[in-house]
């Protein structure tokens, strides 16, 4: 039977995500690289006690509306940007392993508020160690030593070892149950290509979980993607689901 990783509905793509799952959620901090419809489907499924892993814990719907106005002179923010803040605001998250949970200045993200209210646990980690921990998981590396974080809160509870006169921390691989990633095009084998700066954590997380689900703009026939240009080989991807052509509200089954 022909390999076919294409799933027709977002609700079907996330159907087996369970309470207390560890979700590696792609994206960085803007709308273009965010797996919005996968996040929306997880919100609809209303699973609880999730651990979310990623750059930020999201802005959430209210702050996204604020950003839409504030950033209008720079970037038009689409109506269908749903980020991990949606899951946090709906009390679906128990823990975050994040690099950028706190907003700059006197804005408070939903995750920040949840930390202050004692509702979530935070493991703060810089982007370099976070991304390498996921790459390690993807590549079967149990742990690695990095100089980053020595002499800071990141060192707490970690083995310190000196190499060439410089102290390093032992950082453990970080494997998810599900990676939710956003890509540009896919084929039925799960091969993915991205656009511009949207590779970011998406391509890093693809393959770093037991199941990787890719939200894509377009599915193309095998062969349409130049093998020389495939960024994520299909072996790392278990499911592919296509974004709607027109923006849809997050709470509408699809």
């Amino acid at each position, binding site marked *: 039977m022909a390999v076919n990783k294409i799933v027709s509905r977002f609700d079907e793509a996330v159907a087996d995500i369970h309470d207390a799952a560890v979700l590696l959620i792609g994206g960085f901090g803007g709308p273009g690289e965010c797996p919005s419809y996968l996040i929306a489907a997880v919100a609809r499924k209303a699973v609880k006690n999730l651990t979310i892993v990623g750059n930020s814990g999201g802005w959430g719907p209210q702050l996204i509306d604020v950003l839409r106005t504030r950033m209008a002179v*720079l970037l038009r923010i689409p109506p269908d940007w749903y980020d991990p803040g949606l899951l946090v605001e709906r009390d679906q998250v128990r823990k975050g392993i994040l690099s950028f949970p*706190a907003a700059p*200045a006197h804005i408070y993200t939903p995750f920040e508020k949840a930390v202050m209210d004692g509702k979530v646990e935070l493991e703060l980690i810089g982007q370099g160690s976070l*991304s390498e921990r*996921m790459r390690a998981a993807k590549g079967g590396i149990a742990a690695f030593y990095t100089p980053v*974080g020595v*002499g800071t809160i*990141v060192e707490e509870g970690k083995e310190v070892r000196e190499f060439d006169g410089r102290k390093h921390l032992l950082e453990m691989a970080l494997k998810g149950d599900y990676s939710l990633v956003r890509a540009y095009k896919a084929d039925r084998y799960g091969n993915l290509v991205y656009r511009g*700066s949207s590779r970011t954590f998406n391509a890093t997380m693809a393959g770093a979980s037991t199941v990787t689900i890719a939200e894509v703009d377009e599915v193309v026939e095998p062969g349409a993607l130049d093998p020389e240009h495939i960024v994520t080989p299909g072996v790392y991807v278990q499911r592919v689901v296509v974004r709607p052509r027109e923006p849809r509200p997050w709470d509408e089954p699809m």
Partner: protein
Amino acid sequence: MPGERLDEQTMALRVAKEFQDGMVVNLGVGIPTLCSNFVPPEKEIIFQSENGILGFGPIVTDPDEADENLINAGVQPVQPKPGMAVFDHAESFVMIRGGHIDLAVLGALEVSERGDLANYTLPGKQVGSFGGGQDLAFCAKRVVVVMTHTTREGKPKIIKELTSPTTAPACVDFIVTDIATIEVTDQGLLLKETAPGWTAEDIQALTEAQLRVAPDLKEIALL
């Protein structure tokens, strides 16, 4: 009576004088981002942004030309540029951790006399954000901090021991403020330049850490 304090644009202009032709430079969010506006035409600088782009162009100022799939780490849309490369996050930090970034320009809350950097928290906030700044502070070949010399309340930010949580110990090489430039040396802080109208004594009075004065102390060039 000391002179005026430099505005953000002028501080950014001063930082940009540290750029050498062909350097790979990462700019943090805030004043550091402004530095890209002051690259002299005879120099080519390759800007890296930790979300996964290298060699991009200026920040887009017209939303009609903005591409949500070409943003910098401050989530500002940037222009593509011939020779640009894109990559994923793990690769971006292989680049950073591996020492392939010549210069990182970062903002700061505080810098200690040993060059310890504090910049991942905000006063009064319980939760901080490292972003990519910690890796840059630890691993860039040279780290330049740009910040106001004192807090809004007038308290020194260049101090003996950090009072805010440490981002990276002994990582800062050079500090550009709104009244001075200071090099971090093995013998402590060396005052290199002063803003027009400011004396070394004026600057020491706003600096908790002890400054040595460079024998060739100069005024910061404003052009």
